[in-house]
């Protein structure tokens, strides 16, 4: 299954689900990372982590651990929104 952690910089994808411990899962949801939303991987940290994504016009940094729990599909090269 594809997760946010599998994207490469410049790709966007649609969120399909979130898997994480209840507390942090709610935090991720509250920040607007909910199913059907498109996110773009904007950049990554010096060692390839953490990752930096854009969604809904906000920019969010996430660790790879959290990113692996964010399931996505419909991966595209960003800018090619349909």
């Amino acid at each position, binding site marked *: 299954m594809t997760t946010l952690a599998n994207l490469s910089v410049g790709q966007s994808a649609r969120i399909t689900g979130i898997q994480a411990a*209840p507390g*942090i899962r709610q935090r991720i949801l509250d920040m607007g990372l909910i199913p059907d939303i498109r996110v773009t991987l904007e*950049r990554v*940290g010096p060692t390839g982590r953490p990752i930096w994504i854009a969604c809904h*016009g906000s*920019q969010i*940094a996430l660790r790879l*651990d959290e990113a692996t729990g964010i399931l996505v599909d419909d991966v595209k090269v960003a800018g090619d929104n349909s």
Partner: protein
Amino acid sequence: MNAEAEVKKEAPVEVAVEGSAQAGASRDGLRIALAGNPNCGKTTIFNALTGAHQKVGNYPGVTVERRDGRFELGDGRGVALVDLPGTYSLTSLSPEERVAQDELLSGENDVIVVVADSTNLNRNLVLLAQIMQMGANLVLCLNMADEARASGQVLDLAQMEKLLGCPVVETVGHKRQGIDALKAAIDRALASPRASRRLVLGERLDNAIGQIRALIPADFGRPEIADWVATKLLMGDAETTSRFLAHKGSASAASEIAAVRARIESETGHDAPLLVTEGYFAFVDGLLREVMTQRSRADARALTEKIDAVLAHRVLGLPIFAAAMYAIFWITFTIGDPFMGWIEEGFGWLGGWVGGLWPEGSDSLLRSLLVDGVIGGVGGVVVFLPNILLLFACLAVLEDTGYMARAAFLVDQLMHRFGLHGKSFIPMMTGFGCTVPGIMATRTMENERDRLATMFVLPLVSCGARMPIWLLLIPAFFPQTWRAPMLFGVYAVGIVLALLVALLLRKTVLRGDDAPFVMELPPYRLPTLRGALTKVAERGWLYLKKAGTIILAVSIVLWAMTTFPKAGSYEVDKLAAAGHVEIVADPEPSEGEGEEAKEGGDAKEDKGAAEPAGPSLAERLAMAQKGEKVTLLQSEADARNAEEDLNASLAGKIGHALEPVFKPLGFDWKMVTAMLGAFAAKEVFVAQMGIIYSLGEVDESSESLQATLRSDYSPLVGVSLMLFLLISAPCMATIAVTKRESNSWKWALGQLGGLTALAYIVSLVVFQVGRLLGF
């Protein structure tokens, strides 16, 4: 208006939700709270309304405690205003969110002003939706209207008011635009205390919430928040559920609630928390579709993206960050230097002038108190004000532009390796200013272990109060070109040690899982000149206030301890009486010669070399002891007597008693007494060194403390001393705040003892190894 929107707010209704908040407190007058997502500008609005100067910054998590203030409405009615920490939703994960949640649920507020970042309404209005469920009397403040407008977004405010059932205003907080309109809106909300419209989350959810609400006993929480409680129970929120289960008569209801939840989950194939959250977002989406007449352009963030392409660059990011930090220390040192010189001269002149009010050679105690204790002590600290202001100006730029969040992003992985957290970084940067707010800032961390580890190591991050120590000691021992790098080095050593200690803690007492890291990165913002200046002025004022209060008080105590008791009888006098010593008047100092005479007047044995001809003072005294006849200058005799007075004083006795413990580190008793004083406040070290050397000197126009230190101690002692002061015992205020924030004396005292032991070991090793290597 629909009928359900008539849930009127009564005057204080007992306790909000059982157990939460200390409601019921008597209050007269009106009370209003500011709520909103992190970094949406709540504190900016708070400051604009009340005229306060609470800290703002362009990163999430600046405010971590509630702040109270007052302002007046148009008609002169006074209002108590509460500023709250930012929160994404009413589910608390970290201590600072808890504070916000408790206040909002307390039911104590006549109006809740929900501040929203207009450039990110999709997410910001979710909190509004949740607060609507609490039946509160709302005002929506759409802040950052300038940025939203610039991005091309247009909103139909009238339509928004109609749909939400509450006043809606646009503001530009940092420019104080729309503040009067905000007051007017608050007035309107107060005048017609209609609650906002009931939230509609869609048929399925509304039904489920309705069913659960019917199951909640009437005495569980305030009736106004029943919708909200029902939603939480539907979501299976751990805290609300456990409180509900503890409530009498809830047992049968609990299983019915579970059944409602199971039904909706099986019907939709999604879990309840997800359904509810999606419901909130869908509500906001629907609202925005109706009120957003024009969306913002896609390139609204273009400038921020261009800057991030460099500053947050995968390869360049960290070197740029290191360079920025280096620049801060360079600026603090180099630009501050001339200003510091002026203030120093000013105090020198002042000391001379005050001293001159008494006749030559007078040993008035008042004169000594003023010249040695106050001017020598407090003056020694105030001298560094320009440097402190520069340091805070640099930190203000980092905080206000939005770079801080980028730096946290860049260092997260590094911090992670040491068992810390990207979010540990912001408290650490705050700690450059002062450790106490740094420890407070750890409240944004969700994980208790991360939080404790960060708190424990924070005193290792050199704070502003220690800056005067470095500014005194570094130039005393190192040549100009080495100074900025040395200062950078001191900070670097502190940070490296902080990481190592954190790693040790996380591998031993604080072992546990990694905490999640999810952090929002705000757009870059240009700090306003006014904002930056107030921030710097505020810090400068605090520094002076501290110098004028705590440091003054401690200086006077230390002066007294260093002055009394006097020696009573002096060796020189005895020898003179025995006829072994002849005291002659000093020769008139001519150009250049003055310097030499002073060096000679120094009682330190090993520095006799400064005087080219003849045996040193100590040698001559030794000769006199053996019965030879020697001559002393008057100044030499005075210096010798002053030295004996110092030794006999209380501070001298304590210092001497402890000296053996610190001898292996290279410290003498003078440093020891100054270090003890530094526990009250770190700057006191500088003050006490000033006092000791001021008392020990006879000459008012004496050379600077730095020159004295240079001639008395080797650079190796300087390094050992700086390390000890960097690592050892945090100040009293730090211990107190660690106790409060960790809620345990064990941590506070562990921090005190652990760090002091570490300091001792590091200084010992450095000094002894350095000596072996011949430094």
